[in-house]
């Protein structure tokens, strides 16, 4: 039944010949312009991150690889005292892993919470509540992530669980706003037409509205990932682990190599995650939507 929905990518990367790349690039640029036009006026309070273009697909991993290689070479030659050694040795991979775990778990939770809620708030029964929820979401953006996290720690005690709750609360609002905006932006004529050919409410949602909202929902996923990888560095202030541990250890003990290593790794991880999300965005976007009519 749903095998013909446009939410499935109609072409994967390997069967896209080289001469089509230029066309893709042109389309992406075109889309970027249109999106910027749309965004220009109403970009209030939301942090929409810019979509990846094919040029950036190649640049980011190359830069990250060079930076990591340079850092590795510097680290091998660096002279570390005992305090710095103690902070670094056997402490890097576990922190990286914790950081990835914090980011992944909180992102999944954000999506499970925010996307269904966004869908519910655009249904007829709850539609009236959407403006209020969005107003609260915008207001919530004024709360600093650091304060939110520490208040949660005081309330629930330290640990990774508290950190994840804080990260989820912080990212759920923008993703929710994105989902609602995506569903509201759909041309009402399309949903009318779908109803006109006899689709039920859930069919309209499943076969028309959600596929059309995929680009904005994907942008929301990317926003959540990038926000979460950043907020996860703050987990250290609530005993939640992650790469923030290395950064804070570096500052508190005044050991610049520790601080530098932790920061470089956090930056590299954030860039790579944003890059992955951007590539996924390019590949998963319904092909029919690339040319807006």
């Amino acid at each position: 039944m749903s095998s013909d929905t446009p939410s499935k990518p109609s072409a994967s990367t390997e069967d896209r010949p080289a001469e089509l790349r230029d066309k893709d690039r042109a389309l992406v640029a075109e889309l970027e312009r249109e999106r910027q036009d749309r965004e220009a006026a109403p970009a209030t309070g939301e942090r929409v991150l810019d979509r990846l273009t094919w040029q950036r697909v190649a640049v980011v991993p190359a830069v990250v690889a060079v930076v990591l290689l340079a850092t590795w070479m510097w680290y091998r030659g660096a002279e570390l005292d005992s305090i710095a050694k103690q902070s670094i040795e056997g402490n890097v991979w576990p922190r990286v892993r914790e950081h990835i775990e914090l980011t992944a778990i909180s992102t999944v939770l954000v999506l499970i919470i925010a996307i269904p809620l966004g869908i519910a708030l655009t249904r007829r029964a709850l539609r009236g509540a959407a403006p209020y929820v969005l107003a609260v979401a915008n207001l919530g953006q004024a709360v600093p992530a650091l304060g939110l996290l520490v208040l949660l720690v005081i309330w629930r005690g330290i640990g990774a669980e508290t950190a994840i709750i804080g990260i989820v609360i912080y990212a759920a609002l923008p993703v929710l706003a994105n989902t609602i905006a995506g569903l509201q932006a759909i041309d009402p004529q399309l949903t009318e037409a779908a109803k006109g050919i006899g689709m039920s409410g859930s069919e309209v949602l499943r076969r028309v509205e959600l596929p059309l909202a995929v680009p904005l929902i994907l942008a929301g996923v990317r926003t959540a990932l990038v926000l979460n990888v950043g907020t996860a560095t703050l987990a250290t202030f609530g005993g939640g682990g992650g790469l923030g541990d290395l950064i804070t250890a570096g500052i508190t003990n005044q050991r610049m190599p520790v601080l530098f290593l932790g920061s470089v790794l956090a930056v590299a991880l954030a860039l790579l995650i944003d890059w992955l999300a951007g590539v996924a965005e390019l590949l998963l976007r319904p092909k029919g939507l690339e040319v807006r009519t």
Partner: protein
Amino acid sequence: MNFWEFLESRHQQLLTDTLQHASAVFQCMVLATVIGVLIGVATYRSELAGNFATATTATILTIPSLAMIGLLVPVVGLGVAPTVIALTLYGLLPIVRNAIVGLRGVDPQLVDAARGIGMSRLAQLLRVELPLAWPPILTGIRVATQMLMGIAAIAAFASGPGLGNIIFRGVASLGSANAINQVLAGTLGIVILALLFDAVYVLIGRLTIPRGIRA
């Protein structure tokens, strides 16, 4: 000590921190606005340069703020310097992007008309293009300010100024009776500042956006 007693006994310190927080964000926003609009003006006419500026500033935004500060400290030391640099860099993104979008969105016929009545290139830019692009730029400034309020709190970890110091004092004394008062005061202070700044921007928008182009 309950929250109100805490506020009363520490109001001097709290007021100083709040003012420093506001002034750090304000000064960095002025800096970011000037640099951001200049970058926008310099790059919007070229497809390549404009997109490069947008992509670069977008990449900076993906960097976790604590890591950015961590990279700055070994170079410029602790204190005000890393705070100002980090805040200005993060503030740039929304302004550069909206400046480029706004300037590119100006109807070319209007620029032609301006040239037709004999305006110089600079006059076209200052009297036609920038006023028309001002609403999206102001939106960028609002978004950036809200973001900087939170980042400034994190910068206190590198001995930066502002309300983050109270929050971190709470973190250091977790479990003590005053921890929650400190963290709550710092957090609410930042929320209030963010809302106040936003109200001022709405007012600035009312006063500076010509009636003809108001949405």
